C-alpha cells in the first residue's frame, strides 16, 4: 500500500504573521491548503469570518506574467540558437536569484520593449502583405502605358475591364464594334483566369458598351487613387516592399539582441509566478479582523516539519487523522524499482484515496511484458543506453523522469528476454556471417527460439497471464477483507480460484480426479453464491450469469497471447530487414547496402514495436489487471510550493 497517509491540519494565527507563514509554507512545500467554501456557507462560521482574498494583487501579477511570458515566447521564436530537446530546470542559489533580479526595473522595461518590437513586426508584416497584394493586382496592367488616373476626356471614357477567360475576346470585340462603332477595345494581358483589356468609348455610347459588358460578364476595374502608369507604380511598390523587409530584419535583429537577457527574464517570470501564487492562495484563507484560519493536508511523514514551522511562527494548530471514509488527496509513494512505474498509474488515473495504489504490484510484470513484446536484446541495449544517457546527462523531474527511468528498466528487461530468445537485431550475426564471410554462425538462444517452438512460448504467456490475473483477483479479495467483508472475498475470489485452478489442472491432465472435483466445487459454489445480493428469482439468474463470467476469464487469459504475437512481429520483421540488407551481396557495395538497410529498417522496427510494446503492456495492466480490483478517481496531492517553470531556487539550510 503505497498511498501516502495524510493528516488533516487546521491552523489559527495572527494576521500580522500571515505573510511570513505563507512564504515559509511555500518554501517548505509539503502542505496542501484547501478551499474553505463549505465553511463560508455554514451560518456559524459565516458570522465570524470572511474570505481573505486579494484579487487585485493577483490580477496585477497575472498581467505582468502574461507580458513576461509573451516576451519570452517572442525571444524563443526569433532565437538564432538551437532549441533544446528537453527543457531542464536549472538550479540556482537564492542569493544569485536575488542578484539577477537587482535590475528589476530594467527587466520590466526590456519586456515592454520586446513586446513593442513584436507589435512593430506584426505591423510591418501587415504592411508588406498589403503592398504585395497591390503589386499583384497591378501586374496584369503592365502593358497599359497610360497613367492609371486617366479615366477619359471630356467626351470619352477610358474603361479598364476584366472578363472571364472562357469568353471569346474576338466575339466580344465584334459585338462591341456593332453596338458602339466609335469604341476601341484592346486586350492587354491574359492569364489562366481572366482577360484584361481597356476600352475607349464616347460618353454618348457608354450605355451600349455597358450592355455588351453585362452580357459577357465583364467587370470594370478600379485601381483606386493611384497616379502614374502601372509600371511606375509596380516599381515604387517593389522598392517599398524591400524597405519593409529591411525594416523587418532590423526589428528581428533588435529582438535577437535581447537573447542575452533571456535568463534574467526567465527568473523574473518565475519570481512573478511565486508572488502571484502567494497572493492567490489567500483566497483559501478565512479571516477575522486580527486572525486568520486555514486548513490543509500534510503527508504524515512531513507533519513534524510543518508543525515545527507553525510553532516557530506562533500559530495555534491542530493535526488529526482523517475520518474513516474521508477522501484525502492522493500522493503515491513508491520506492526504488516501482517508483518510475507510477507514470503508468498516473496515465490511467490516480487511485481513490481509500483504495490501494497498484504500482508496486504491476511494476515487475510491466517490465516483463514490455521485454517479451520488444523481445530483441540489441533493441533493449539501445533503449537502455539511450535512456540511461538521458538520465545521467539531464536532471529530469516529474512525469518525464519517471517515464524515462521506466523505459530504462524496460530496456534491461528487453535485453534479458532477447537473450533468452536469441534475438540480437533479429539474426544479424547469422546473416552477416553468411553474406560476407560464408560462415555459419548463430547466437544460441539461452532458452529457445520462439519461431521453432511457438506453442511452448504461447503456453508460457498464458501462465504469466494466469499469475497476473490471480494477483489482480487476490488484491480484490484483500480489499474486501480490509473493508470488513471477508465472505465477499471468499465468494467472489476464493471460489473462482478453486474453479480456475480446477479447470487448469484438468487441461494439463494432472491429478484428474482431484481437479474434476475442484472444478465442480468451484462452479457449484459460484452458482449458489453469485446471486446472493439479489432478490427472489434474481438469485438463480445471478448464479448463472456469475458462472457465465468464465468466458471473461477465458478471454482475459487469451489476451496475453499478444506477448507472443508482438514478440514474433518484432523478431521476424528484424529478420526481414536483415535479409533485405543481404541482397546487396558481398563486397563494398553489399556492405553499403547492408548498412543503409540496417539503419533505416531497424530504426523503423524499433520505433514501431517500441510503441506497440508500450501500448500493449499498458493495456494488459489497464484492462486485464486493473479491471479486477482497481478503484480510480483520487485527487492528486498538490502542495503549496514554488511552482516555478525555469529555475529551482536552492535555499541554504540553517
Amino acid at each position: 500500500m503505497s498511498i501516502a497517509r495524510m493528516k488533516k491540519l487546521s491552523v489559527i494565527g495572527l494576521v500580522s504573521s500571515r505573510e511570513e507563514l505563507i512564504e515559509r509554507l511555500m518554501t517548505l512545500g509539503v502542505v496542501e491548503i484547501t478551499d474553505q467554501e463549505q465553511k463560508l456557507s455554514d451560518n456559524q462560521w459565516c458570522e465570524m469570518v470572511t474570505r481573505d482574498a486579494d484579487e487585485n494583487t493577483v490580477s496585477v501579477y497575472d498581467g505582468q506574467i502574461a507580458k513576461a511570458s509573451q516576451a519570452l515566447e517572442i525571444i524563443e521564436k526569433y532565437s538564432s540558437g538551437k532549441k533544446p530537446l528537453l527543457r531542464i530546470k536549472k538550479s540556482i542559489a537564492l542569493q544569485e536569484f536575488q542578484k539577477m533580479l537587482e535590475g528589476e526595473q530594467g527587466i520590466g522595461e526590456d519586456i515592454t520593449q520586446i513586446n513593442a518590437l513584436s507589435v512593430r513586426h506584426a505591423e510591418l508584416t501587415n504592411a508588406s502583405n498589403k503592398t504585395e497584394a497591390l503589386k499583384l493586382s497591378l501586374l496584369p496592367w503592365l502593358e497599359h502605358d497610360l497613367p492609371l488616373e486617366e479615366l477619359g476626356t471630356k467626351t470619352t471614357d477610358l474603361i479598364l475591364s476584366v472578363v472571364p477567360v472562357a469568353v471569346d475576346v474576338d466575339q466580344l470585340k465584334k459585338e462591341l464594334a456593332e453596338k458602339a462603332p466609335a469604341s476601341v477595345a484592346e486586350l492587354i494581358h491574359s492569364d489562366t483566369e481572366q482577360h484584361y483589356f481597356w476600352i475607349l468609348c464616347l460618353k454618348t455610347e457608354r450605355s451600349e458598351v455597358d450592355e455588351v459588358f453585362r452580357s459577357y460578364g465583364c467587370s470594370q476595374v478600379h485601381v483606386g487613387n493611384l497616379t502614374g502608369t502601372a509600371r511606375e507604380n509596380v516599381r515604387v511598390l517593389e522598392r517599398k516592399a524591400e524597405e519593409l523587409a529591411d525594416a523587418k530584419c532590423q526589428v528581428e535583429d533588435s529582438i535577437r539582441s535581447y537573447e542575452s537577457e533571456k535568463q534574467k527574464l526567465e527568473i523574473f517570470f518565475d519570481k512573478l509566478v511565486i508572488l502571484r501564487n502567494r497572493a492567490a492562495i489567500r483566497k483559501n484563507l478565512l479571516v477575522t479582523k486580527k486572525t486568520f484560519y486555514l486548513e490543509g493536508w500534510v503527508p504524515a511523514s512531513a507533519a513534524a516539519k510543518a508543525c515545527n514551522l507553525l510553532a516557530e511562527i506562533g500559530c495555534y494548530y491542530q493535526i488529526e487523522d482523517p475520518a474513516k471514509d474521508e477522501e484525502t488527496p492522493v500522493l503515491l509513494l513508491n520506492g526504488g524499482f516501482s517508483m518510475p512505474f507510477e507514470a503508468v498509474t498516473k496515465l490511467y488515473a490516480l487511485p481513490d484515496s481509500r483504495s490501494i495504489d497498484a504500482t508496486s504490484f504491476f511494476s515487475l510484470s510491466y517490465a516483463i511484458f514490455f521485454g517479451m513484446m520488444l523481445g530483441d536484446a540489441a533493441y533493449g541495449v539501445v533503449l537502455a543506453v539511450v535512456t540511461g544517457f538521458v538520465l545521467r546527462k539531464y536532471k529530469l523531474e516529474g512525469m518525464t523522469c519517471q517515464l524515462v527511468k521506466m523505459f530504462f528498466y524496460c530496456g534491461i528487461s528487453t535485453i534479458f528476454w532477447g537473450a533468452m530468445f536469441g534475438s540480437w537485431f533479429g539474426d544479424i550475426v547469422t546473416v552477416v556471417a553468411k553474406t560476407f564471410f560464408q560462415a555459419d554462425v548463430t547466437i544460441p538462444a539461452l532458452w529457445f527460439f520462439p519461431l521453432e517452438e511457438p506453442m511452448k512460448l504461447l503456453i508460457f504467456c498464458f501462465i504469466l497471464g494466469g499469475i497476473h490475473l490471480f494477483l489482480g483477483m487476490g488484491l480484490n479479495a484483500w480489499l474486501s477483507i480490509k473493508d470488513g467483508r471477508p465472505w465477499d472475498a471468499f465468494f467472489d475470489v476464493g471460489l473462482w480460484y478453486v474453479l480456475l485452478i480446477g479447470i487448469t489442472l484438468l487441461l494439463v491432465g494432472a491429478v484428474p480426479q482431484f481437479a474434476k472435483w475442484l472444478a465442480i466445487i468451484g462452479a457449484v459454489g459460484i452458482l449458489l453464491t453469485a446471486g446472493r445480493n439479489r432478490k427472489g428469482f434474481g438469485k438463480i439468474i445471478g448464479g448463472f450469469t456469475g458462472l457465465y463470467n468464465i468466458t471473461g476469464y477465458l478471454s482475459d487469459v487469451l489476451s496475453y497471447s499478444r506477448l507472443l504475437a508482438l514478440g514474433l512481429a518484432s523478431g521476424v520483421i528484424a529478420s526481414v530487414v536483415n535479409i533485405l540488407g543481404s541482397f546487396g551481396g558481398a563486397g563494398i557495395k553489399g556492405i553499403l547496402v547492408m548498412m543503409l538497410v540496417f539503419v533505416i529498417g531497424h530504426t523503423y522496427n524499433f520505433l514501431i514495436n517500441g510503441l506497440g510494446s508500450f501500448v500493449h503492456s499498458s493495456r494488459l495492466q489497464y484492462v486485464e489487471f486493473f479491471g479486477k480490483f482497481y478503484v480510480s478517481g483520487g485527487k492528486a496531492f498538490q502542495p503549496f510550493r514554488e511552482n516555478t517553470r525555469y529555475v529551482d531556487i536552492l535555499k541554504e539550510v540553517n
Partner: protein
Amino acid sequence: MNIPYESILFDGVFWAILGAVIAATIAGIGSAIGVGIAGQAAAGVISEDPKKFGQTLVLQALPGTQGIYGLLIAFLIMSKVGLLSAGGPLDITMAQGAYLFASSLPIGFVGLLSAIAQGKSAAASIMMIAKRPEELAKGMIYPAMVETYAVLALLVSFLMLNSVQL
C-alpha cells in the same frame, strides 16, 4: 517457357505464394486505409495546434501494425517454401500449398477490417487529444482494444502456418 495453366493451378508453390500475397496485400490495404483515416484527423488537429504533432503521430501509427502482421505471415510463408533461400522453392504438393494459402486468410481479412476500425478509433482519439492532450494514454488504449483481434488473427495464422508439415 511454355507452362500449361493446369500445372500452375495445381502447383503447391503457386498456392503458397498466393497466400503470402493475401496476407501482405489485404492486411496492408487495411493498414493504409486506417493510417490514412487517422492522418486526416491528425492534420486537422495540427492546423489548430502544431505542437501536438508528436502525440498525434503516435496515435496515427497504431493502425499500421496490421500491415506488419500481414508482412510477417507473408514472410514466414515465403521462407517456409524456400523462396528466400538460395536453393529456390521446395517441391511441395498442392495440398500443402493450399494449407499455407488458407493459413493466410485470418490475418488478411481480420487485418483489413480491424485496421480500418482501428483507424477510425485512432481518429476519434486524435480528436480527443485536441481538447485534452494530457489524456494521451487513454487515447491509445481505445485503438489498442481493436488491435486485440488482429493479434488473435495473427496468432491463428501463425499457428496454422507453423503446423503445416512440409
